[in-house]
């Protein structure tokens, strides 16, 4: 992208995104990733309903803020500690659609777990995405620890960790922010607030409207951005990223996002969310809002849109075939990797 960015910089002086230092190619690529994540997401649900996968959990509605927050990151150098909704973030960080589908199908070469974990438990050593577990909240202290190591080892790495607003109620969330605040760690603490923890609404999760207010209690800035405003999400993320790079410490970022789907393939949100509300949140779909911005900016012509859609379809079809053709784990490997196989005493 680097080359292209330079090439097209000139003609985007006036636009909103240019004011933020984003080229036309940047924003178009951001749109591509949002659309890719959404299409992959749809595909995963289709495959699950078709019986090709036992379970799906994904992030429809969360893609905009995820792509925006990942954009300033150094994909090779920085760390990402995801959660199950981080489909778009993992794609931008460097996982391929096939990587994610290999997890969905639980195949031997699933880079996240070799088919050992449920779908949605992302991880990839090659692109510095830490392995995810299911217990909500445990990832926050991990991120603080990774960032501490980066500081002590002077690697210049920045760490980004994501969680939902329900996860902020966990003790680990508090302990991580407190620790990171004391040591001014280069860390972005993301909270993707979709106003529900499965069926539990925000008002039963916390007594405040925005979790960003808690930053002050840890000696760090707390900011909140509308997840449907992708450029605003980028702006706050970039600011936090620069702060971290400068050594000025962590930032707590809340992205207010719509949860467009049910919690997971085991949930039916119609049972606890009013119809009107479901319609209302659909208006906040970042794919629509960002697409509309790019149209206004004259960057996303119908032709261009179709082109991107076709490319995505091709890529996902290919990825599905690749994943589907991959072998299942060999049952004789079930006992492996309880411990490192080179044995105890030698590190």
């Amino acid at each position: 992208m680097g080359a292209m960015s330079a090439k097209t910089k000139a003609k985007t002086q006036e636009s909103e995104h240019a004011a933020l230092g984003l080229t036309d190619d940047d924003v178009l690529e951001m749109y591509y990733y949002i659309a890719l994540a959404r299409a992959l997401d749809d595909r995963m649900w289709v495959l699950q309903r078709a019986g090709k996968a036992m379970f799906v959990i994904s992030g429809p509605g969360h893609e905009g803020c995820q792509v925006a927050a990942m954009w300033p990151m150094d994909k090779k150098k920085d760390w990402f500690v995801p959660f199950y909704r981080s489909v778009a973030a993992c794609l931008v960080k460097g996982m391929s659609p096939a990587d994610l589908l290999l997890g969905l199908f639980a195949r031997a070469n699933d880079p996240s777990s070799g088919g050992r974990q449920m779908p949605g438990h992302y991880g990839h050593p090659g692109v510095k995405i830490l392995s995810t577990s299911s217990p909500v909240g445990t990832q926050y202290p991990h991120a603080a620890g990774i960032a501490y190591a980066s500081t002590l080892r002077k690697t210049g790495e920045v760490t980004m960790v994501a969680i939902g607003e329900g996860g902020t109620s966990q003790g680990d969330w508090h302990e991580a922010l407190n620790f990171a605040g004391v040591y001014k760690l280069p860390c972005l603490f993301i909270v993707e607030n979709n106003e529900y923890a499965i069926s539990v609404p925000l008002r039963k999760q916390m007594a405040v409207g925005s979790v960003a207010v808690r930053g002050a209690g840890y000696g760090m800035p707390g900011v909140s951005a509308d997840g449907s405003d992708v450029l605003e999400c980028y702006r706050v993320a970039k600011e936090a990223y620069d702060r971290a790079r400068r050594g000025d410490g962590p930032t707590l970022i809340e992205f207010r996002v719509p949860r467009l789907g049910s919690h997971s393939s085991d949930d039916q949100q119609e049972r606890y969310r009013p119809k009107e509300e479901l319609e209302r949140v659909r208006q906040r779909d970042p794919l629509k809002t960002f697409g509309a911005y790019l149209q206004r900016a004259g960057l996303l012509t119908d032709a261009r849109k179709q082109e991107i859609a076709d490319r995505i379809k091709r890529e996902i079809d290919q990825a599905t075939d690749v994943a589907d053709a991959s072998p299942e784990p060999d049952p004789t490997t079930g006992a492996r990797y309880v411990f490192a196989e080179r044995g105890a005493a030698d590190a």
Partner: protein
Amino acid sequence: MPEVRYIDAINQAHHLAMEHDDSVIVMGEDVGAKGGVFGATMGLLEKFGEWRVIDTPLAESSIAGVAIGMSVNGLRPIAEFQFADFIHPAFNQIVSEAARMRYRSNNAFGCPVVFRAPYGGSHGTALYHSQSIEAFYAHVPGLKVVAPSTPYDAKGMLLAAVQDPDPVLFLEHKRMYRLVRGEVPGGEYTVPIGPAVVRREGTDLSVFAYGWMLHETLQAAETASKEGINAEVVDLRTLAPLDKDTILKSVAKTNRALIVYEDNRFLGYGAEVAALIAEEAFESLDAPVLRLGGPDVPGVPFAKKLEEWFSISQEKILAAIRKLAAY
């Protein structure tokens, strides 16, 4: 008596307990509007309202800790952990606080809390939605641990747990929720916490199990009987405090013992049962005490073939029965 599913028996117990005692409240993640991810608390919110059916924040340590506080001030909370795998953040509150409150205060305070936890592997539940946690908690004095295997016991023991003056960890193997059916009286009744029960009389060997494993074991015993092996099957039901007598009586009769459990084998619950038999039934043993437990790996892997490799199937139980009988 009507036949109901295990999950229905659990749900009935909740309704009855709350109807008959205003001090009973239910708390946990998604227990309200959603009625619980497995439906155990279905219909409670509508009937008893938000203050007695609490959709808690996503924070297990405080689910336990708040329940403990409620229980010392006149309430009888039933606290649901959405999956047994997610009870771990509450380990300190349950072990250091609930289980010790009465002893440390020399009987001044007690914690009548029921901690419910759906445990065990079902299909595709993988590392973090399949755990057996009984070994961690049955080791803790001051805590009662039960794992009923029939709808009748599930309802009766849950009602007994709610009335118990001390904390009870109530384990429900999630595989049974929709698979296991049985006759259950419509009204209130209790099944005492403590006694184990012989589910199948036998003479050649004794197999001890609980929860879902009890059902796999009964099937295996059935097959074994066709091969002329007459296995006695004991449902432990209450894991702590353990009903030694029923166990020892059975071994005294059959002279052979096998313990079946789904949890990791090493230091799993079966270890205590085996050790008990080895010490107190030594003279009557004609064969080594066998344990059939899950492999010692960190969790049940997701991929179907790996899951099968991990799981304790009827075939594996039957093989163990044959081996023990042949000794």
